[in-house]
């Protein structure tokens, strides 16, 4: 049996375990990688490889960045930063038509600058922003759609765990990835805001204006979340100036977030314990995914599937843009049935070498596919954030949330299209480092 065929059987076996047996993604990748390696080399070699990879992944200094950044986000989350950010955004833009929905997007993007969790953002924003929008007679379709889509910004705007993992998996500079994603994140945020403006112009009844705040109230509202945004700027500046590495940035960020929360008395002891527990739980899940992907990647490497695929595509008579569009469609379809993080870890060993062989910029490719897979968080049938919003919102049907999300889908597609047409939006900032 040829190695490529063994690899193809391995990939099919992985899908079988994932879809039929409902096995956790990290476990599936490790099991298939181990079984495939045993078949191609030997059982003992596979056992040695698995043990060594598992230990090296768990004890790798570079991976300590994951719990540290997650910890920073959890502290911000449990100290109620996103609530304060929403109130501040509300004071500034709430008085314009669709303003409360816009405030939700702005608050989500600001919170994304500290926390990378989609579902945490969706949960809090649903409890904070939904009652406010309901009070002003906002349509449930617009309000839930804005929350579900706004919460996806956490993955795109740095510091994002997904970008960290892509950086580690593809051996790229995490700082450069962070800088590359700023332009894309800002573009997506602006297009989401523009969607609300357009939708409210077409159907004014969807989002009515709230009462106007005075300048004094507006300025006073900034104190609620400005300290965390200063923290974000400190982290990005520290990375830019080489003051600290990404892992150190995570630790410094967590330390300052903790310090701010203690000084402002916004984090209780119970919430601190919850933040620690959540950090351990989520970090473990992420590191298990990486360990599984590494074991699976070793198996793929010996079957030479990524290289064969790259050679095959190189022989096709298709333009690079068409190939990129095909890859994007695969990611959109994959993102619709699987979590973005898991999908990226499974497919990066296959598609990243292909993209490099086609001459794409690694930062541009990584950021673009991150946005493409992000779509999966709001589209059926998986759409994790959509379920969270529908679960928390009272008297709102899941189909209404999906209907709301569908209004924002053109913004995502337009972002991807613009990024393909103008790659410098992503590449110019990392080019300055």
């Amino acid at each position, binding site marked *: 049996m040829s190695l490529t065929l063994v690899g193809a059987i391995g990939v099919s076996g992985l899908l079988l375990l994932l879809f039929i047996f409902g096995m956790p993604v990290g476990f599936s990748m490790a099991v298939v990688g181990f079984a495939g390696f045993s078949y191609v080399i030997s059982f003992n070699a596979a056992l040695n490889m698995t043990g060594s990879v598992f230990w090296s992944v768990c004890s790798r*200094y570079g991976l300590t960045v994951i719990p540290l950044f997650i910890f920073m986000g959890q502290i911000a989350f449990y100290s109620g930063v996103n609530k304060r950010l929403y109130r501040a955004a509300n004071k500034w833009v709430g008085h314009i038509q669709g303003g409360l929905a816009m405030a939700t997007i702005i608050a989500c993007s600001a919170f994304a600058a500290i926390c990378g969790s989609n579902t945490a953002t969706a949960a809090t924003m649903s409890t904070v922003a939904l009652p406010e929008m309901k009070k002003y007679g906002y349509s449930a379709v617009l309000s839930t759609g804005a929350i579900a889509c706004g919460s996806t910004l956490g993955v795109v705007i740095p510091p994002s765990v997904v970008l960290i993992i892509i950086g580690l998996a593809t051996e790229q500079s995490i700082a450069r990835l962070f800088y590359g994603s700023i332009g894309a994140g800002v573009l997506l945020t602006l297009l989401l805001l523009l969607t609300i403006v357009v939708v409210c112009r077409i159907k004014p009844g969807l989002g009515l204006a709230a009462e106007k705040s005075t300048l004094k109230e507006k300025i006073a509202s900034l104190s609620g979340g400005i300290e965390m945004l200063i923290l974000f700027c400190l982290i990005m500046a520290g990375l830019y100036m080489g003051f600290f590495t990404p892992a150190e940035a995570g630790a410094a960020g967590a330390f300052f977030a903790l310090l701010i929360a203690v000084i402002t008395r916004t984090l209780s002891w119970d919430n601190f314990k919850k933040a620690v527990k959540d950090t*351990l739980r989520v970090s473990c899940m992420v590191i298990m995914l990486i360990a599984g992907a590494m074991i699976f990647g070793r198996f793929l490497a010996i079957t030479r599937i990524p290289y064969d695929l790259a050679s095959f595509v190189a022989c096709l008579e298709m333009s690079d843009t068409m190939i990129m569009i095909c890859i994007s469609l695969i990611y959109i379809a994959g993102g619709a049935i699987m979590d973005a993080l898991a999908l990226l870890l499974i497919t990066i060993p296959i598609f990243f070498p292909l993209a490099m062989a086609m001459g794409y910029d690694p930062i541009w490719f990584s950021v673009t596919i991150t946005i493409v897979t992000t779509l999966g968080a709001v589209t059926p049938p998986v759409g994790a954030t959509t379920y969270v919003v529908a679960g928390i919102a009272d008297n709102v049907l899941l189909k209404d949330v999906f209907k709301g999300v569908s209004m924002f889908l053109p913004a995502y597609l337009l972002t991807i299209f613009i990024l393909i047409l103008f790659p410098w939006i992503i590449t110019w900032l990392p080019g300055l480092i």
Partner: protein
Amino acid sequence: MIDLLRKINSLQIFCGGCFLVCMVFLTCCNILFRQFGMPVRGTFEIMGFLGAMLFALSLGYSHDKKEHLYVSILFDRFPEKLRQVLQRINAMICGLFFSLLTWQLIKKALNMKSVGEVSETLQMIYYPFILVLAFGTFVLVLFIFYALFKKGGDSN
């Protein structure tokens, strides 16, 4: 059985939380002291070991809380009976895999002990950290096998 496992988990989470806080403070001290030309020696090594223990000690907890991502698109649509059967097969495969991994990690740790392998910078023995990782995977195996033998095939 599950109560005992959850007690072990609580203890593990307490230790894991302490390691997390240690990681934050150790890194911050290193950043600070480095500005004065006195970086904390071996920070990278200690951070790696603390990270490994943090992961090891949260494996059981994360599994118990069903944190690990799985693809639910087909699985959740199966009839209850079929899901239970599949969950048991799933638990058998995972249980076997992590048992082998635990055994391999113990073997690796004992091998390192016998050759006296030490870390590069601090020259400290590090096989105990591998044993902690093996303990973490062992607790995970216990959770998986508990789910396998429990009615319904689920630890929760």
